[in-house]
């Protein structure tokens, strides 16, 4: 899967450059805003904001969101039938495929982004401990599982409604907004913050919280929320996939 992905280095460079540009533009914007407010907004420093946003964009390079559109394409093109004739679980295969496809750009983005941020803003105190590394790893893995489940629910709906693009767009934007793509979650108004914490969309991006000073007191609750949504969505996905296989229809025949 990784081999297939890295066949076009130019595409990878363009993808990585696109993400770096978006992240860079937002960071410059935030740098300006923070400098007009004395370097601190709502108790959050620019350094923390920069790392939080970087974690979000690094996570995005995995492109787990593409799972939904991959499932839709498989259904539209009939590839789902080819895969169902193989000794694999279709959904697990698609999830591993997505993960494999995203690993290389993720690795590139993490290495380059980390170097750039260390040089530009330095490492905040909250990140220089084994506690950070340990909990980040857990939240990162749980975030991957949760993201795959969120997008699997959307993708599996294609078995019933074929074109899931409008729904995908809504869910994807919910993940972006509640995950802290445009505005760090720590700066959200109270109600919005609660939605970001308690919804599966925001919970799938909890990696962005690991750099906040509040992480040490809130990590257990957040990991619990992630596990809760993984269980709930896991049951839903499993039920949907069982029903979806029975819904496979035939093009031609």
């Amino acid at each position, binding site marked *: 899967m990784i*081999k*297939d992905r890295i*066949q*076009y280095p130019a595409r990878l460079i363009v993808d990585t450059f696109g993400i770096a540009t978006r992240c860079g533009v937002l960071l410059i914007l935030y740098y300006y805003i923070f400098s007009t407010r004395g370097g601190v907004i709502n108790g959050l420093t620019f350094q923390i904001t920069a790392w939080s946003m970087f974690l979000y964009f690094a996570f995005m390079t995995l492109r787990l969101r593409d799972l939904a559109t991959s499932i839709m394409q498989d259904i539209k*093109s*009939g*590839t789902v*039938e*080819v895969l*169902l*004739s*193989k*000794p*694999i*679980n279709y959904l697990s295969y698609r999830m591993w495929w997505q993960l494999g496809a995203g690993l290389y750009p993720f690795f590139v983005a993490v290495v380059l982004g980390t170097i750039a941020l260390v040089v530009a803003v330095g490492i905040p105190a909250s990140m220089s401990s084994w506690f950070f590394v340990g909990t980040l790893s857990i939240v990162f893995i749980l975030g991957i599982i949760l993201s795959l489940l969120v997008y699997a629910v959307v993708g599996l709906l294609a078995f019933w409604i074929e074109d899931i693009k409008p729904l995908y767009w809504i869910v994807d934007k919910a993940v972006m907004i509640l995950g802290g793509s445009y505005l760090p979650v720590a700066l959200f108004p109270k109600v919005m913050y609660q939605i970001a914490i308690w919804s599966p969309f925001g919970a799938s991006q909890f990696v962005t919280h690991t750099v906040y000073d509040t992480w040490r007191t809130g990590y257990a609750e957040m990991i619990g929320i992630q596990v809760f949504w993984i269980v709930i969505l896991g049951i839903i996905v499993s039920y949907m996939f069982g029903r979806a*296989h*029975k819904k*496979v*229809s*035939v093009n*031609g*025949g």
Partner: protein
Amino acid sequence: MKPKIIEVKNLSKTFSFSVKKHGSSFFRNLVSPEIKTVSAVDDISFEVEEGERIAFIGPNGAGKSTTIKMLTGILFPTKGKISVLGFDPTTDRKALAYKIGTVFGQRSQLFPNLPITDSFEFFGVMYDLSKKEIASRTAELIEQFDLASFKDQPVRKLSLGQRMRAEIAVSLIHKPRIIFLDEPTIGLDVVAKKSLRELLIKINKEEKTTIFLTSHDVGDIESLCDRTIIINHGTVVRDMPTDELSKSFVHEKYLDITLEAKPKNFPELPQGIKYVQKDSNKITLAVDQRVLGVSDALQKILPYFSVSDIDVYNVDLETVIREMYEATSISK
């Protein structure tokens, strides 16, 4: 007697879908749509012995692909029983998949950006083969299917004929006991078709792989399959050895008559002779030899037309199959 490896009993499959009720509101159509049911396969039964080469044919929409997809566990039957190599595809899909191969002519399973050797490796791992087994089987298939000259090219750069050879070779990586092929020669030129048919016969003879194929190409049926099952409107209308199928209309002789001049009209023909085709400068007639012989038929029809050439021949398999399709369509 060879063991039966596919047993299908009273198999049916219906598809249900909602249709818009004319005159009903959007909300009503959304909440209680009209459900239409289409019967794709209707109570079919057949058995296949190990090592057979089966052509499963029928016109578009006859239920061929639906049946293949039920035999491979992709679709669930509405009614009836299927046993493939002793497995029920509905409940043992994964276990069955290790024993069968599938090729869907219009859908590729190869990685477009990678050489075919990567697809061999990928599917070898998928079928739980060891590294050593993958390497030796890959080498064997590359040799058998003559893939060496393009094995390092990305799949997207291969010709359709090369790609189809690779598709079939990859589907044989795990030495399946049955290979299901859904229109494997679609879009191929005559040379590529011939090569593919020869390869399939070779695999059938050397590895005893049972071949179960659907095709619209009479050449596939004639040169590849020893038995033909014809399906139409979801039901089996004929199941017989392929060479007997071509003899089904052996009582008929065909006459191609080239005309010197366009006839004013096409007269009614004597009993036992019928028009198959009427053109301004050529007509084709079918003579039922149970009613009259060819020489008698010629004597009777020559006065009607100004003839420049006559060609007498037996009916070909394509015509037999077409007539069977038409006959079963009319009876429905």
